[in-house]
């Protein structure tokens, strides 16, 4: 146990633990010390200098983010000098930030605007000095230097060290790396960690107009699907508390906007699970291409393709749920409904920037068509709802459309790190023991927010004896590419260390995805995840292979191996470095696309 002690912040006695900074202690006690460059997911750099506080006995002001709380310390978080410093500092920062509030991922809820009000800073005291700076586009990411306040949160969070600081002094700027060893994996963590909204994904704010045009076309059937974690995070920008389960309202909102059909990606996750568990079991039994890596996270796949091509063969060939649902809609469902697959337009709402790239990979095509035609982020959907005044909090809950409307509990877990693994293990249990899992908490070691979760699972047939034919699965569920590197290093040392590895590029998995609403931190991610586990607990069917829709489609449609391969499986391969486009700012960058 570390030492506890008391200190005084703004005249209030507060408790602290050794090693905590003043900023953290203040935050835990409900005192908001302004900060821009500090993010709990990152290292402390103390660049923005907004969190200056006065400490009794210290001549100079100190940054609260980098100063450890001490026993008996007396801290003042606001006084006239601090107020003045924050006001002018913020005005200086505004001078390097072109304000495009109507098309900003922060949706006018950023700290810059919050502190501007608190400290009466003039946004326009200094003319914008960076209007001639480049806007970089790489993959699905758009990095706008004209808005960048040089805090370097993106550089710090970037898992591949792709974003770099270039130049010196006042000319510094953050730019994509030209180094051939580094490439962007499109995870979008830079987007959700930027305090200034300088980074967004390709097409954000253009999607509403595109969709409205599409819905006007009489011959099109516009289908929307939503990823597991959307149901517990869409409420954030709609005035609902963090972690609110809003599945029914979300469906109602999507219908209100005009989508013809609303499907749940979690149902497709049940297909993914069923296929993936089968494949994993096959590999584990034969010992070939172990460990099996999951493929649901396109950033992880891209990371392997670019940086560790020797492991491409280990990635499961099973497609991600979103793609599978697109494929099913344009084959099985189209046949059933008598629709021309060419006239089905599939939109998916994803917590992810990387899915925008994945949907356009040629490897994803099925019968010559892209399974998914358009990917929008959680943020984009929230913005559409707000623009259209669709207040989902006030809507009656509605059920999603069948046959892809009712997932198992397992399917919903895909939004959390460890969820794919747990779903697959539940089904693998059945495959290996011949019995359905009864204790749903048997694999709880793979749950939670830790970066690496390891578990060794022994399954025997029959279950009760604990003897006879037994299989041991060495599993690891990983979130964060930095943690994935640790696992890959371990595998270099001992190739047999793991049999089955799930990797999600974003912290906590899709719940912390780069397409999610801002702000984000560990507590917020936890609430998004807890809601998913609550849904699972409340479901009658919690095993993917027991989902009646899955059973029906397998029986009715997948009567040949070829059909199954065509829709469920794909391949991956080495890829060249992402092309970087550098362009100047135009009027269109500041306006909503009409």
């Amino acid at each position, binding site marked *: 146990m570390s030492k506890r002690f008391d200190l005084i912040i703004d005249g209030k006695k507060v408790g602290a633990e050794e090693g905590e900074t003043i900023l953290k202690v203040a935050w835990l006690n409900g005192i908001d010390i302004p900060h821009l460059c500090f993010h709990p997911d990152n290292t402390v750099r103390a660049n*923005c200098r907004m969190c200056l506080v006065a400490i009794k006995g210290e001549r100079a002001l100190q940054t609260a983010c980098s100063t450890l709380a001490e026993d008996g310390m007396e801290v003042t978080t606001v006084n006239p000098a601090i107020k003045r*410093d924050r006001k002018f*500092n913020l005005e200086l920062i505004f001078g390097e930030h072109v304000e495009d509030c109507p098309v900003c991922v922060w949706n006018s809820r950023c700290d810059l605007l919050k502190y501007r009000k608190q400290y009466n800073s003039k946004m326009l005291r200094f003319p914008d000095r960076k209007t001639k700076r480049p806007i970089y586009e790489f993959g699905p990411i758009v990095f706008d230097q004209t808005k960048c306040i040089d805090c370097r949160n993106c550089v710090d969070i970037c898992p591949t060290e792709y974003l770099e600081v270039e130049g010196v002094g006042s000319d510094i700027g953050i730019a994509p790396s030209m180094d051939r060893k580094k490439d962007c994996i499109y995870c979008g963590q830079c987007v959700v960690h930027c305090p200034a909204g300088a980074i967004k994904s390709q097409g954000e704010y253009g999607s509403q107009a595109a969709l409205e045009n599409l819905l006007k076309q009489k011959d099109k059937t516009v289908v929307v699907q939503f990823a597991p974690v959307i149901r517990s995070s869409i409420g954030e920008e709609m005035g609902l508390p963090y972690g609110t389960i809003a599945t029914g309202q979300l469906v109602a909102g999507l219908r209100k906007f005009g989508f013809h059909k609303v499907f749940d990606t979690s149902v497709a996750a049940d297909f993914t699970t069923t296929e993936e568990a089968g494949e994993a079991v096959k590999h584990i039994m034969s010992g070939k291409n172990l460990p099996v890596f999951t493929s649901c996270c396109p950033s992880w796949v891209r990371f392997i393709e670019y940086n560790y091509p020797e492991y491409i063969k280990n990635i499961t060939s099973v497609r991600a749920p979103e793609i599978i649902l697109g494929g099913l809609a344009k084959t099985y469902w189209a046949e059933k409904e008598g629709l021309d697959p060419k006239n089905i337009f599939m939109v998916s709402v994803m917590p992810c920037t990387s899915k925008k790239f994945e949907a356009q990979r040629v490897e994803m095509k099925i019968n010559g068509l892209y399974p998914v035609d358009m990917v929008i982020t959680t943020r984009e959907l929230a913005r559409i709802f707000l623009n259209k005044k669709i207040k989902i909090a006030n809507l009656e809950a509605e059920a999603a459309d069948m046959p892809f409307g009712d997932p198992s509990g397992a399917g919903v877990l895909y939004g959390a790190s460890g969820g794919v693994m747990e779903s697959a293990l539940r089904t693998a249990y059945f495959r290996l023991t011949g019995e359905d899992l009864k204790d749903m908490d048997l694999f709880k070691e793979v749950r939670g927010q830790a970066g690496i979760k390891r578990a060794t699972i022994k399954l025997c047939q029959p279950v009760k004896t604990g003897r006879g034919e037994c299989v041991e699965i060495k599993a690891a569920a990983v979130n964060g590419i930095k943690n994935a590197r640790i696992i890959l290093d371990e595998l270099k040392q001992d190739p047999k260390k793991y049999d089955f590895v799930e990797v999600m590029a974003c912290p906590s998995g899709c719940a912390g995805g780069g397409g999610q609403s801002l702000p984000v931190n560990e507590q917020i991610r936890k609430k998004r995840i807890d809601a998913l586990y609550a849904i699972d607990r409340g479901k009658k069917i919690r095993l993917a292979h027991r989902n009646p829709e899955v059973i029906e489609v397998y029986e009715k449609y997948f009567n040949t191996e070829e059909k199954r391969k065509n829709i469920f499986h794909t391949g991956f391969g080495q890829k060249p470095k992402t092309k970087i486009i550098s362009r100047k700012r135009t009027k269109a960058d500041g306006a909503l696309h009409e």
Partner: protein
Amino acid sequence: MRNISKIAAARLTGRGGAEFPTAFKWLAVAKAKLEKFDRPAYIICNATEGEPGVFKDKHILRYFPGEVINGIRIALEELGAEKAYIYVQRKDLNTIKKRLTPFIKKLPIRFFAEDGGYLCGEETTLLEQMEGRRPEPRLRPPFPTEHGLHGCPTLVNNVETFYYISQIVKDEYRHTRFYCLSGAIRNPGVFELPIDLTIAEVLKKTKNIPRCKFFLQVGGGAAGEILLPDETNRPLKGAGAIIVYDRAKTKPQELMTRWIEFFFKSNCGKCAPCREGLYRLREELKKAKPDWLMMRAILETMRDASFCALGKSVYTPMLGLLEKV
């Protein structure tokens, strides 16, 4: 520890300009070395000297190379350090190397040349650059004495400090320092004189009492304080520069522009107040009628909020000039 006691008794302070008690630094390194006994310790002699009006280190390296090397040798032995580096500007490397090499002999002393400039007077910036990263200051703590070069205990001292360490250990220290005199005077140059002389006395002793109406900048040619003739009755602090300006010939806005240009070029870009403040000050000074009130607000913000001494110190000369001249 005998030598550290001697340094402490001589009350030697760092001659790079920060005036930190040298013995404290040495003790901190010695202590860290005991705690991290499995790690090497390093000695760094800082010879970057990047500020206008400061040119004493080059003088010392030119005339007393043996003394400086002897000072470094004492540090190596006293602290059980593995290696010493002399950090020099790239353009000076060959000259300095030629002069010092005969004295280095078999001592583990190496040269490190970079274009670090003014900011590398700040020791953590110097360390960052030596480790191949961007030259930007580090957060402290941990201090370089315990977590310096490659995470090892590291002593960073200025050339002049090492020179006087040699003198102290040989019992030859007479409480002097090096003064760099320049500007509107007849007899500019580097002079070694007692530490407790007043600035007026330094001007007198070096036959440099200005004939014109003048004001001074002392400590450094950019960050140094502005003094009027009636304020010279006190000893010099900081990096040892005394610059004399002819009041009639000096245009304040031009002088400010010169300083701000220097700071602007030296600034690393790390923290917002310094990076943005210097940019705006520079822009403002380009105008025929700068907004002095706004500049003052920027300078105050920079003084309070900047990450390192570079940004904090811009206020001193600028406000001095604004208020006094």
